[in-house]
């Protein structure tokens, strides 16, 4: 029992975070939201090994468990990563056949992945428009319910992880704003009304991350717990952040909206709150599973 990342895993997570924070700046996000051409960063992601985190070593991947992917997804969430990276590396790759995978990895290694994805998306369905200006959605046919439940486990964990990354980013943006914005001759961040709101969000984030990690390793009810906790945390973070930003938070000019809208979108993805709550109703209220101390791990 040692509920920590190994040093190697932590190095990989830190490298991903450094890359996302360094490359996916808000300037880049704004440019992408405005439809401007930006440099294709997928070759770099491929070189860093980020695309093959969960792929088997036999096809050139890093063969890391879902929990490592979850930590990378949190970093992606923090940066507001506007690419379908998590969906590819964390959901498609682990569910792909060996044949599909070797094709994928070759594409990734040849840095051709982005056009490959775009081409795949173009022929798979009709475009629909999200409030999140950085999400390119298409309407596609789903598989059967069992497939969806299985894929949802990965998707729920990784979307939960992105949600707490987004939440932390919104807290940090709010802290910066509250230190800078003066009223009554003081930074508004010196007022307890502001401090207490943000401390509450911080606490919720800190007590959501570990259950996401547990969910990634153990699956089961922890997944539903993790996703619901992450949804509630993200909504609290977004509502608190806009309140701290005041009128500025209600504009398209302040970057907060980019992160807030992503949070809204991911709350409904990979099993919304109702889906996961109903699963918990079955498990906790209608089932006869042993509950209480000693059964968490």
């Amino acid at each position, binding site marked *: 029992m040692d509920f920590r990342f190994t040093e190697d895993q932590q190095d990989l997570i830190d490298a991903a975070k450094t890359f996302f924070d360094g490359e996916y700046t808000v300037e880049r996000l704004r440019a992408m939201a405005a439809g401007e051409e930006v440099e294709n960063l997928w070759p770099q992601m491929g070189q860093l090994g980020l695309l093959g985190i969960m792929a088997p070593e036999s096809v050139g991947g890093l063969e890391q468990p879902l929990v490592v992917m979850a930590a990378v997804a949190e970093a992606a969430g923090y940066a507001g990563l506007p690419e379908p990276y998590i969906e590819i590396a964390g959901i498609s790759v682990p569910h792909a056949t060996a044949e599909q995978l070797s094709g994928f990895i070759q594409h990734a290694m040849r840095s051709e992945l982005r056009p490959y994805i775009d081409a795949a998306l173009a022929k798979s369905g009709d475009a629909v428009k999200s409030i999140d200006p950085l999400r390119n959605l298409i309407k596609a046919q789903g598989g059967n319910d069992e497939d969806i439940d299985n894929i949802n486990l990965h998707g729920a964990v990784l979307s939960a992880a992105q949600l707490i990354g987004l939440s932390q980013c919104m807290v940090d943006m709010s802290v910066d704003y509250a230190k800078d914005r003066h009223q009554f001759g003081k930074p508004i961040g010196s007022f307890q009304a502001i*401090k207490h709101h943000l401390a509450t969000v911080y606490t919720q984030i800190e007590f959501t991350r570990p259950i996401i990690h547990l969910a990634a390793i153990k699956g089961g009810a922890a997944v539903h717990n993790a996703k*619901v906790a992450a949804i509630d945390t993200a909504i609290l973070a977004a509502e608190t952040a806009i309140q701290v930003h005041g009128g500025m938070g209600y504009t398209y000019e302040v970057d907060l909206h980019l992160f807030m809208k992503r949070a809204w979108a991911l709350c409904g993805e990979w099993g919304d709150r109702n889906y996961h709550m109903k699963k918990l109703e079955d498990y906790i*209220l209608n089932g006869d599973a042993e509950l209480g101390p000693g059964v968490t791990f």
Partner: protein
Amino acid sequence: MDIEFTSAQKAFREEVREWLSAHVPKTRLPSFDTQEGFDFHREWERTLAKDKWGNVNWPEEYGGRGLDLISWLIFEEEYYRADAPLRVSQNGIFLLAPTIMEYGTEQQKSRFLPPMAAGDEIWAQAWSEPGAGSDMAAIRTKAVRDGDHYVVTGQKTWSSRAVFADWCFALVRTEEGSQRHNGLSKLLIPLDSKGLTRRPIAQLDGDPGFAELFFDEVRVPAENLLGPEHGGWGVAMATAGFERGLLLRSPARFQAAAARLVSLYKQHKDRLSSGVGEQVIQAWMNTERFCAATYQLVARVEAGASITSESSANKLFWSEMDRHLHRTAMTIMGAQAELEEGLDAIDNGRWLDGYMFSLAGPIYAGTNEIQRNILAERVLGLPRK
């Protein structure tokens, strides 16, 4: 990440479970905030100590088993799973003992830890004063050095267990004319000292769960100074870290309550409105989140990290979780919620007791407003002024 218990840890769990099932009293003990209940709980501490179950993570020389914190968590899980009595010695074993281990002299360790482990000396905390609650640096109780003694004069309050306990650990002003956090020291004081008067304070349930302590020139041997003279603030903060952070409230206690809450819900399900079920689920979810977070914290501590400001987030989470959980139970019980005892009192008023106690959680160990200030300023970096 490894979330499997080792075979040694699994065997340890079995051993704990077996011992508890043979020794835990079959009926719940009366509250330790009554003389009768206190005596029963002291006896229980002695029973635990006899087979070295009281403090499994302490060094063997002081009455422990020298095990790591994971083992302690396993012990706690089995302890609350068996519905064993609450620990009347908690202020000593969870708050003072780690402080003595960190700051005490060898002599203090061997003088104070074994009788604490044995249940022979039960400790109370004496920090707050009428004018020093959330603003603890406003402490005025003074201790003047006189030869090989300190002479303590002043007043302490909200001293839990002090009505029936044997000793208290006090934070007093040793440096004359000092201000705020400076000039304070931590003194270990027998509660039967000459010149020390205890006035019981009845808490919400009517029992004297805490006391006011009046010190009128109480002479305390200088060897009872814990940590550096005039450096008591730092020593006290270490204790507060234990209190808020890890030891005082392990997840098992809340997880056991959540499991009982689910049973309560199932018994009353038919007459409940539709939102109650979600509150029950939420209460269970919170306890699992707290458990996962605690195992992660323990993994970090075992790897050498120290607990700092994150103990404030911990305290916020468990205290608000506990209040929500018990509030949900009160909602479920409806008209029966107010019943303390008698035929229709569910579980002999246990939920009501729990709800009342949960209301203290956001206040003791530093109010939740203070914890939010600490997080905002020290972790998030918001300006103090």
